[in-house]
């Protein structure tokens, strides 16, 4: 049911926009002051010039910077306008461009209105705004907010897009995969008024939903399969990745998800999954480099954790306070180290290999087996011990003991047992005269050496080996081990060599709502306290930051565009009330699926994405959300799409990371040890892109070409580049050539009997719509031309079909199949194939 008023192409000229809206400090003024003035006249007292700060109204007025109501008497305006270089602000040496006329006018109008300040939007307590009542009817509150603004601006939103685009968009957005043609047809023909709602539910329930959401989350927490620095050796963390997928699939509330990652190990009676979640704290970059100084890297790791926590949850730049107070936001130098202190209990080597981690059974069967092999070891040991005790009581137990064979003969060792002197002395005594302590000493000697006990000894060895062997086949993960906290000091200028700073205890940034008092008024806060504070109702940042990023996943841009900065220097939300409404909605239950359901059911989401030049001219960055946003798919989903369309995709969820095709020698610059990528075989080669082994210093090059990050640091917003390497990957990477080969085979098998029908079939599979006659013609031309060429040179056809592990069907002529590979390569390279409309 569409609820928007839809006037096709009701594109009004810019002049009909509402005339000059009132000045809003946060939206209009603070960005000017922040970027032009705060660097020298802001929160950081160390660099403050002329003891003047403009971020606090009283201070600025006292200093005469503004005379409320009188712009011409305000020093600020005079200083901006003066022609005297020594007086002009911002000074030339700041290299800041002079203020524009619009900016000056804004400041004048604001001073004339009384120079009123307001708090920065993201730092104010979160309150639920009222849902506006636009003239156009809307049942979804999101639409109400969007429409209210559009009505004010005199802009009409686009109509709901066609159903093909809609199911394709929704499938990519919720699962990272294109829909199957049969699903498209079913949806297009579904007469049920709830057809779309049904589709949303179906996709939200798909196990691939968790994978799609995990790709988003893993960028934030910088998940990778290698340590990062220098030798960049592998680390075992893939069970954490699977925990993330499962958490999204089971719709784990976000507050619980947060707590388990930050402090799962500290939860009372922590489950295995909660301990696995705590691997979050082990995802940072670490080093094994020889000559690295422990103290330096302890400081690096500490800062890395604060940076990531501050970005992922607080959505901002507390990292800027590592060396000094934040230049623009209220984060202090002390805040940085107070937050760092929360993580000081995490036990890890400062320098060196992270170790294999803890074996973690992935299934109940594995769990039972792990317990069985684990219990078998003490059982075998007890049996041996009992046998030995019984043995020494025997009358002839030590007869000829000196002739016993050595149970562990070394190469040059003696053939008979080595008897310790004290044992020899005891055995020399009359058995009746041995003290109980002496008798007890004979037990281990007999246990370890008596020939008749060999079967029991062998059983212990076998049990131990069975346990070790079994643990080797289990997945492993670097969990968080808590221990005595390291001392954390404020590092002056961030200098790890400087011990002069005060010792900091764990605490949250001082300008934000405080932690509840410690039980009993003493002790030390821990990560569990941090986690609970993070998602507490009073925290103004977290729900806003996360809701904003979730919005971005479905609309292409954040409501506040800077996903990595909720602070003063970030961009103002285009729809602040909407963002706060979403944040409060989310915060009530932290129900991620419910929030997403709300987003994708909105008419705003379902709009067309078609832009005309006029629309683009009016709102190029789509700040009004009067249309949907088109975007190239993320790196992983481009691979997934090719695999899915061609029928190669192995849909397995989770498990160890895999190694599909990668050019030989790509790892040549790695060392300690020198390595070559060992490609996997079988259907591991066809897993989704998110399972590809993530080597931080050399991430898979086909993924890098499409902007996959290195995951060394938090990535909130991948850039979307459009570069020639992308063409080279789609044209020449064996993974895409092989996909074309599989796609061609499938087309010949399932696409009908005639060329035209087959081309149409293949085209529809990739882009979900029917090819137009002109499009069909282009593809037919390639088919016919290459069919003839490959027929003339069948050896070329064989070479092309030799790409990839996949065997070609025996009932098809290679030259015929090769021509179809060309057609399928064209289709897999289309802009439309890799774009979400």
């Amino acid at each position, binding site marked *: 049911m569409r609820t928007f008023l839809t006037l096709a192409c009701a594109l009004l000229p810019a002049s009909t926009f509402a005339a000059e809206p009132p000045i809003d400090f946060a939206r209009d003024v603070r960005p000017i002051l922040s970027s032009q003035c705060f660097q020298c006249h802001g929160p950081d007292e160390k660099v403050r010039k002329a003891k003047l700060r403009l971020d606090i109204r009283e201070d600025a007025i006292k200093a005469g910077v503004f005379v409320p109501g009188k712009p011409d008497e305000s020093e600020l305006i005079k200083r901006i306008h003066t022609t005297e270089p020594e007086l002009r602000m911002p000074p030339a040496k700041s290299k800041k461009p002079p203020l524009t006329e619009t900016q000056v006018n804004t400041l004048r109008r604001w001073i004339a209105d009384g120079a009123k300040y307001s708090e920065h939007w993201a730092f104010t307590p979160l309150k639920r705004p009222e849902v506006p009542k636009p003239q156009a009817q809307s049942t979804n509150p999101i639409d109400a907010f969007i429409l209210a603004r559009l009505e004010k601006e005199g802009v009409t939103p686009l109509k709901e897009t066609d159903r093909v685009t809609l199911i394709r968009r929704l499938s990519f957005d919720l699962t990272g995969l294109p829909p199957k043609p049969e699903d498209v047809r079913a949806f297009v023909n579904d007469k049920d008024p709830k057809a779309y709602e049904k589709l949303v539910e179906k996709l939200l329930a798909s196990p691939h939903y968790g994978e799609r959401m995990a790709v988003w989350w893993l960028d934030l927490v910088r998940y990778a399969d290698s340590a990062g620095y220098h030798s960049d050796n592998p680390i075992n963390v893939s069970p954490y990745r699977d925990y993330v997928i499962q958490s999204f699939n089971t719709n784990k509330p976000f507050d619980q998800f947060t707590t388990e990652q930050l402090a799962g190990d500290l939860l009372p009676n922590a489950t295995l999954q909660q301990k696995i979640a705590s691997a979050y704290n082990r995802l940072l*970059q670490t080093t094994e480099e020889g000559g690295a100084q422990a103290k330096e890297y302890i400081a690096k790791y500490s800062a890395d954790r604060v940076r990531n926590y501050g970005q992922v949850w607080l959505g901002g730049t507390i990292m800027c306070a590592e060396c000094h107070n934040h230049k623009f936001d209220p984060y202090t130098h002390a805040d940085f180290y107070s937050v760092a202190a929360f993580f000081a209990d995490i036990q890890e080597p400062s320098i060196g290999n992270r170790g294999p981690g803890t074996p973690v059974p992935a299934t109940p069967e594995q769990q039972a087996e792990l317990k069985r092999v684990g219990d078998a070891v003490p059982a075998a040991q007890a049996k041996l011990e009992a046998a030995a005790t019984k043995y020494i009581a025997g009358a002839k137990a030590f007869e000829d003991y000196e002739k016993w064979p050595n149970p562990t003969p070394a190469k040059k060792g003696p053939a008979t047992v080595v008897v310790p002197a004290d044992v020899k002395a005891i055995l020399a005594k009359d058995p009746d005269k041995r003290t109980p302590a002496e008798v007890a000493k004979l037990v281990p000697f007999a246990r370890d050496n008596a020939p008749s006990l060999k079967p029991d000894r062998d059983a212990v060895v076998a049990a131990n080996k069975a346990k070790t062997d079994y643990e080797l086949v289990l997945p492993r993960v670097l969990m968080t081990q808590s221990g005595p906290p390291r001392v954390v000091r404020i590092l002056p200028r961030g200098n790890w060599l400087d011990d002069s700073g005060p010792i900091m205890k764990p605490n949250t940034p001082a300008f934000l709502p405080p932690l509840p008092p410690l039980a009993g008024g003493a002790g030390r806060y821990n990560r569990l306290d941090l986690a609970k504070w993070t998602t507490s109702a009073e925290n103004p940042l977290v729900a806003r930051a996360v809701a904003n990023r979730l919005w971005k996943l479905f609309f292409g841009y954040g409501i506040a565009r800077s996903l990595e900065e909720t602070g*003063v220097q970030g961009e103002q939300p285009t729809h602040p009330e909407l963002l706060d409404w979403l944040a409060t909605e989310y915060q009530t239950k932290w129900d991620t699926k419910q929030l997403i359901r709300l987003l994708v059911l909105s008419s705003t989401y379902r709009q067309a994405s078609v832009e005309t030049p006029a629309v683009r001219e009016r709102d*190029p960055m789509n700040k009004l959300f009067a249309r949907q946003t088109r975007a190239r798919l993320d790196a992983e989903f481009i691979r997934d799409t090719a695999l899915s369309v061609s029928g190669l995709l192995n849909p397995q969820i989770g498990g160890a990371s895999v190694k599909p095709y990668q050019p030989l020698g790509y790892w*040549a610059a790695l060392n300690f040890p020198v390595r070559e990528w060992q490609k996997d075989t079988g259907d591991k080669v066809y897993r989704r892109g998110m399972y590809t082994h993530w080597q931080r210093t050399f991430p898979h090059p086909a993924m890098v070409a499409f902007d996959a990050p290195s995951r060394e*640091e938090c990535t909130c917003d991948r850039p979307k580049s*459009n570069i020639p390497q992308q063409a080279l990957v789609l044209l*020449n990477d064996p993974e895409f050539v092989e996909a074309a080969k599989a796609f061609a085979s499938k087309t010949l098998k399932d696409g009908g009997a005639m060329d035209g029908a087959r081309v149409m079939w293949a085209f529809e599979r990739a882009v979900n719509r029917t090819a137009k006659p002109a*499009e069909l013609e282009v593809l037919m031309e390639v088919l016919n031309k290459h069919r003839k060429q490959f027929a003339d040179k069948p050896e070329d056809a064989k070479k092309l079909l030799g790409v990839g592990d996949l065997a070609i069907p025996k009932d098809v002529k290679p030259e015929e199949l090769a021509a179809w590979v060309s057609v399928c390569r064209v289709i897999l390279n289309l802009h439309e194939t890799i*774009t979400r409309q």
Partner: protein
Amino acid sequence: MTTLEALKLHQRRTFLTNSCRGVGALALSSLLTPRAANGESPRGVILKPHVAPKAKRVIFMVMAGGASHLELFDNKPELKKRNGEVMPESITKGQPIAQLQNNKLICFAPQWGFKKHGKSGQEMNELFKFLPEVADDLCIVRSCKTEAINHDPAHTFMNTGSSVSGRPSMGSWLTYGIGAESADLPGFVVLTSNGRGGQNQPIASRQWSAAFLPGKHQGVQLRGKGDPVLYLTNPPGVGSDQQKDVIDAVAKLNQMQNAAVDDPEIATRIGQYELAFKMQTSVPNLMDMKDEPAKVMESYGTKGSDGSFAANCLLARRMAQKGVRFIQLYHRDWDHHGGIKDGIKLKIEEIDQPLAALVKDLKRLGMFEDTLIVLTGEFGRTPMSQGGSGRDHHMKGFSVLLAGGGIKGGVSYGATDEFGYNAEEKVFPIHDLHATMLHLLGIDHERLTYKFQGRDYRLTDVHGHVVKDILA
């Protein structure tokens, strides 16, 4: 094609009026520095140089592993005299230290003699046979210092001005700022070569990452083995004509789609496919040196693209001719914790001739004046001995060699203390190197910024001074 061109122009105009923020500027981002299909070379964000540029391009040579200044350019007679004595605590106390942690710190004499060359009397290791011929063209800075003592973060610092991962490298900054002159090669190219001594420290691809800058500014690695650029070669059995057919069909279908949806990204993508196709020819042509006169090949001491430093120097010159903006050569195997005497001899043999040949060759072609050459390690090495035959990592003082593009020849700048430990006179931090390089390319380092995380990021962070004393 004209319709497409017109469309592109219109779409671009629309976009440029509104490009307020680079990062996350989804969908339209690639038009920021358009690289059109018609051979037009990509522009940067700086349309008018901040200062008059002296250099058009940079050849940046990293002696990876940490080349010893004490065995290359920084002669320390006092250190020689004190060989075997304990280093004064006044110098070493409380200083960062790498593998010599908990070791006695003993002075270790320079392992080779030094000679002075040219009118300027440039001083260098006596083993150099070819470099002396161009001594008066070189500027040697002997007072450089860095902020990281381990290879990985030190490379990161050298390239990005920060040892925290995730900042753009200098080549990316440069192409972001002023684009490139080549229409069919990337603007930022990286080559690596190994040495014969087996001390090849790893080098992460982070070193040429564009980080938060648009992906097109990422460095492209040219490889000696396999595809020279990843995925450059057609699939087996696919001829050049057939590849062209595929690309043409993709372009035609993309254009039809553009007519329906009017998406500026489509025009860009069509251009990128054409560029990719051109690279399939231009890169092999670049790598294939058969058009080089034998005399030139001999002067560098190379027989062709074999992944050696000599070959890479010649490739660098070929790329310089074709308008590549930033050419970065990593020559590995300088990590002389032991056996430095023989090790340095090997290294000098590897770099001496090609380095001198490059200077002379650029002069011959009239390109020396506008090609900036920089040669440096990611750090230097300790005046203290490691194990009696080597030196440890050292960040407080080392040498950088500069030449060409606006650099004054025959200049010695700055000095370390008498031990070669601390840069003492006219200290030259890496940020100053970056500021000076950008200046030579016409860029004010404080004005080449990119907003990310609410901050205007720069290559020089909040530091950097242009060192005018070394400018011609």
